[in-house]
């Protein structure tokens, strides 16, 4: 191999040089220097062209995949319902599946993952704002709630409330979902998050916690400080 051939190979892929090229570099100091320079340059470019992804991107992707699958499942459920409806016409009774409640968990988690910044910030939350939000699900505060963020938010099934509570074991998101009703408590692990959805006077509310202790803290807090009207 001559120097020209070596340079051609080096500039095409310095990390995968052939044995012949490496042999040439051992005998040619100029080419050995070029090789070291190119490898250093590549390493420098690689280091300098970093771009860290947005926080929670992987979780959002996994959730979007799951939601997409649920849409397909809902489509099949719709087809099944139509078939069932036709069957009813012909005198066969089929029970309707509970289609609404499982989505409440996903709604809460998706909202939390889409707005991760609210878990970090600390706002001064006034009790009037808090009570306005809580009133949507038929609750009022008895005392103070250690909220670090509170705001109204748009949810797929209507407007709701987004509150972040500070507990001893981490921050917990309380999602108020007035337009989503559940008959039973729902609980699911989603990635590193624990999600529980509870029935409220109007609709439901969910707690999204980073660990079991934080969830227990939040539930204790709500039991003590909330009054259902």
């Amino acid at each position, binding site marked *: 191999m001559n120097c020209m051939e070596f340079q051609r190979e080096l500039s095409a892929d310095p990390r995968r040089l052939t044995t012949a090229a490496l042999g040439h570099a051992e005998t040619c100091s100029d080419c050995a220097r070029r090789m070291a320079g190119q490898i250093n340059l590549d390493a420098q470019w690689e280091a300098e062209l970093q771009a*860290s992804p947005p926080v929670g991107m992987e979780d959002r992707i996994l959730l979007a*995949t799951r939601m997409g699958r649920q849409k397909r499942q809902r489509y099949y459920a719709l087809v099944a319902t139509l078939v069932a409806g036709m069957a009813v016409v012909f005198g066969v009774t089929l029970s309707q599946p509970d289609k609404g409640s499982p989505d409440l968990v996903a709604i809460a988690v998706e909202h939390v993952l889409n707005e991760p910044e609210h878990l970090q910030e600390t706002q001064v939350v006034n009790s009037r704002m808090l009570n306005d939000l809580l009133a949507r699900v038929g609750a009022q505060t008895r005392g103070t709630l250690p909220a670090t963020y509170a705001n109204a938010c748009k949810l797929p099934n209507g407007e709701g409330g987004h509150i972040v509570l500070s507990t001893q074991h981490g921050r917990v998101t309380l999602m108020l979902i007035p337009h989503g009703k559940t008959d039973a408590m729902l609980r699911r692990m989603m*990635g590193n998050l624990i999600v529980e959805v509870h029935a409220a006077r109007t609709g439901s509310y969910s707690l999204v916690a980073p660990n079991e202790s934080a969830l227990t803290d939040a539930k204790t807090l709500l039991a003590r400080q909330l009054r259902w009207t």
Partner: protein
Amino acid sequence: MAWFGIGSEKDSLYETLVRAYAPELFRFAYWLCRDRHVSEELVQETCLRAWKNWQSLNDPQLAKQWLFTILRREHARLYEQKTPERVWAEDDAQWETMVGQVTMPLLEVREALVKLPERYRAPLLLQVLGGFSCREIAVIMDASEDAMLARVSRARRMMREMLDEQPNIRRVMK
């Protein structure tokens, strides 16, 4: 742990792939289009397409190359025709978040990279950031291996020429 489905092997492998490769896909997408939001959309669309076309992943060992191929095609399909030439418009705060500290050599490497026409930039990024060989790049780019060898070489030469004109880079490189 597969949490988004019924816990099948497919679910589990999919989650592993997303967690392993989404950051690398994002980085490649970012240097293709230079927009964080568009990049996240591209990565998300890539993963969703991968999920839908799971049966076309014949060999899990080739998963990374497969995902990069989907992303490259998705970028071409959605953005290549309509993306206007961008300038480096992000504010310093965004860059601080992304790369830690903005340094002059970094700015110059970025400027040199963005000046490369996309047909040269994409193969170079795939090699330098993705660690792919020219043969793999040829598959991802839907082109011949010889063409990719030529483009990567040309891209390196163009980058070197541009950076050689920058005094700060020359100082750093010595």
